[in-house]
C-alpha cells in the first residue's frame, strides 16, 4: 500500500516523519532556516497523539544535552538546528559519541562563518563529517537532496544510530528545508514501551535498575581510555559498510561530477547540458557523507579524465574526493558560497574551463 501523499516543506516533513517513526522526544531551539521543525511539532501536539515529548530548550547547548539525557534512557530522541546552533551542539555531540548513545541531529545548513546568512549552504561539511567536537569520533552523516529524503532519512538515521549506538546527523541545507515538494509519508509506528526499550537496549540504558548502570564518557586511566578509543575505531570501521550513494549516467562517463544534497540536483541539469554538447559526464552523489563512498569514487574516478567536485562551500568535500582517487586524476572544485546556490550554467562553465580546458 502506498503511504499518504502530501505537498510539504522539508522542515515540516522532518517533524511529521519523527511523529510517525515513534520518536519519544524532540528538544530544540529556534534558528532560521529550520524553525518550522519545532513549530510543526508544537502545532501537531504529538504528546496527545503518541506521548512524544516536545520541548523548547533555553539554548542549543541545553537541547543537545537533553538529547543526551533522553538517549541514555534508550529513548528515540532528536534535535534540529542550523549552523550556529549546530556549532553550539558540538559539546554534546562529543559526549554522545563518547558515551556511545544513539540520537538524530538535523542540521539545516546556512552560510557562515559566524552569524553569516540565513541562505542555504553546505559549509558545515567539515564540521559534520570530521567530528566537529573534541576527541576522536565520527557521527554518521546523511545528506538528503529532496523533501522525500528528508522524510526517509529520519527513520534511516534512527535505525543506524541505534544499530551502532552513535549520533546520526541529517545534513541538509536551507533550500531543502524550505522547499515544498511531493512526499510520500510513512505509516505510523507506535512508540516503544519501557519493556521493549529494556529488551532492545540490553544493559546500557539508564531507566532505573538494580544493576548500577552508568552512562559516562569519562575514563581517567589512559590505558583503559585507549582501549575505548580502539573499540570506537572498530565501530567506525564497521560503519563503513553502510555506505550509500547514487550514480547518474556514469557507465559511459569520461568525466565525473561529485556532489551531495542540493548541489547534486543542479549537477544533473548541468550534465544534461554538457551531454547535449557531446561531453560524457556522469555524477556520483554521496548519500552518506560519513561513511564516505571512497571506493566507488576511486573505482569510477580513476577511469575518467577529470572530476569536478561541486559544492555550496569553498571546497570541503573535495579533500575526500582527492583522497579517494589518490590524486591520480585531476580534481577541481566548482560552486558558490555565502548562501548562494550555483546555477547549472555556472557549473557547466566551470567544467569546461577547469576540466576540459585544463
Amino acid at each position, binding site marked *: 500500500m502506498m503511504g499518504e501523499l502530501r505537498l510539504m516543506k522539508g522542515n515540516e516533513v522532518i517533524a511529521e516523519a519523527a511523529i510517525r517513526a515513534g520518536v519519544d522526544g524532540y528538544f530544540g531551539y529556534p534558528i532560521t532556516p529550520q524553525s518550522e521543525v519545532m513549530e510543526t511539532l508544537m502545532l501537531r501536539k504529538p504528546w496527545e497523539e503518541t506521548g512524544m515529548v516536545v520541548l523548547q530548550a533555553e539554548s542549543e547547548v*541545553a537541547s543537545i544535552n*537533553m538529547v543526551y539525557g533522553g538517549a541514555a534512557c534508550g529513548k528515540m530522541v532528536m534535535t534540529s538546528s542550523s549552523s550556529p546552533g549546530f556549532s553550539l551542539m558540538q559539546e*554534546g555531540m562529543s559526549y554522545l559519541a563518547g558515551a556511545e548513545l544513539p540520537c538524530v541531529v538535523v542540521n539545516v545548513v546556512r552560510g557562515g562563518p559566524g552569524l553569516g546568512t540565513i541562505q542555504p549552504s553546505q559549509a558545515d561539511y567539515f564540521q559534520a563529517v570530521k567530528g566537529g567536537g573534541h576527541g576522536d569520533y565520527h557521527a554518521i552523516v546523511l545528506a538528503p537532496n529532496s523533501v522525500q529524503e528528508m522524510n526517509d532519512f529520519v527513520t534511516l538515521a534512527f535505525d543506524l544510530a541505534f544499530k551502532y549506538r552513535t549520533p546520526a546527523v541529517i545534513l541538509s541545507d536551507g533550500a531543502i528545508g524550505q522547499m515544498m515538494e511531493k512526499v510520500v509519508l510513512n505509516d505510523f509506528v507506535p512508540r516503544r514501551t519501557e519493556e521493549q526499550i529494556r529488551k532492545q537496549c540490553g544493559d546500557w540504558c539508564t531507566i*532505573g535498575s538494580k544493576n548500577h*548502570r*552508568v552512562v559516562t564518557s*569519562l575514563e581517567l586511566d589512559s590505558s583503559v581510555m585507549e582501549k575505548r578509543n580502539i573499540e570506537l575505531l572498530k565501530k567506525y570501521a564497521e560503519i563503513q559498510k553502510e555506505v550509500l550513494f547514487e550514480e547518474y549516467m556514469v557507465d559511459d562517463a569520461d568525466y565525473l561530477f561529485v556532489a551531495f544534497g542540493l548541489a547534486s540536483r543542479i549537477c544533473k541539469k548541468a550534465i544534461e547540458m554538457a551531454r547535449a554538447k557531446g561531453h560524457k559526464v556522469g555524477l556520483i552523489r554521496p548519500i552518506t557523507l560519513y561513511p564516505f563512498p571512497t571506493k566507488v569514487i576511486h573505482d569510477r574516478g580513476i577511469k575518467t579524465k577529470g572530476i569536478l567536485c561541486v559544492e555550496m562551500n569553498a571546497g570541503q568535500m573535495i579533500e575526500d574526493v582527492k583522497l579517494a582517487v589518490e590524486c591520480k586524476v585531476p580534481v577541481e572544485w566548482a560552486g558558490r558560497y555565502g548562501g548562494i546556490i550555483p546555477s547549472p550554467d555556472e557549473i557547466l562553465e566551470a567544467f569546461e574551463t577547469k576540466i576540459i580546458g585544463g
Partner: protein
Amino acid sequence: MELKDIIKEENIVYKKSKLILDNVMHYCPGCSHGVIHKLIAEVIDEMDIQEKTIGVSPVGCSVFAYNYIDIDWQEAAHGRAPAVGTAIKRLLPEKFVFTYQGDGDLASIGAAEILHACNRGEDIVCIFVNNAIYGMTGGQMAPTTLVGMKTATTPYGRDVELNGYPMKMTELVAQLPGTCYVTRQSVETAAAVRKTKKAIRKAFENQKEKRGTSFIEVVSTCNSGWKVDPVKANKWMQDHMFKFYQLGDLKDATKPEGSEYEQYIKE
C-alpha cells in the same frame, strides 16, 4: 558484658546504607561530598526507590559520584546536569531524577541550565554543593568564592573590582516560580547532617507529588582547596560562609504560610 554480647543485630544504631557501594571514595579526608552522598543513598533506600531513581553526576570533584551510590547514573557535561535531568524526567515521568552539582558546575558554566530548569519547574531534585571554590581543577575562584578569599586565580584575595561579587544561586532560584522547595543546609555537625537529610527526603517527597523543582544547597568545605585542615575548614565555614550564605529554608510551597524566610521578607 563482653564485646561480643554488644555487637549484635538488635544493638545496631547506625550502619552504612546498603546503597553505598564498597568502592574506595576518592575524596580528600574531611570533604563534604562523601557525607552528602551518604544522605542521598539513605533517602533513596528508605523510600525504596532504588530501581526508580536516576542520578545525574557533574563535572568537578564529585564527577565519580556514580561510583558510590548503587542506582542508575548518567554523567553530564560540565554544568549541563539540569538539562540532562530535564529530559530524563520528561521522558520517564514516573521515575525519580536528581542532579548533583558543585558551585563551579552549577553557578558558572551551568548557570543558564539550572535557572531554566528551575524556572520551568522541572520535577527534579537539584543538590548543589557550595564549597566556594573549584576543587577538582586545583582551587581556582568559583562564582561563590567570598570577597577576600584567596584562591589559585585570586592569589591576593577575591577583589570585587577585578572579579565581581559572590553569587547567591539559592536566593536566585527561590525567586523562580518553578521551584517549590529551596533550602540552604550544611553537614559539618551531626545536627546539621540530620537537617540536611530531612531536606533531601522532603525534596524527593516533593518529586513524588510532582510539585516542581526542589533545590538544596549544602554549604560545604574544601579543606584541600582552602589549604587548611578539616577542623579549621569547618570553623572557617561557620564563621565566614554562614554569614554570607545564611542557612535555612528560603521557600517551601508545601507550607501554606511559606517558609520562615518568605515570611521574613514579606514583613
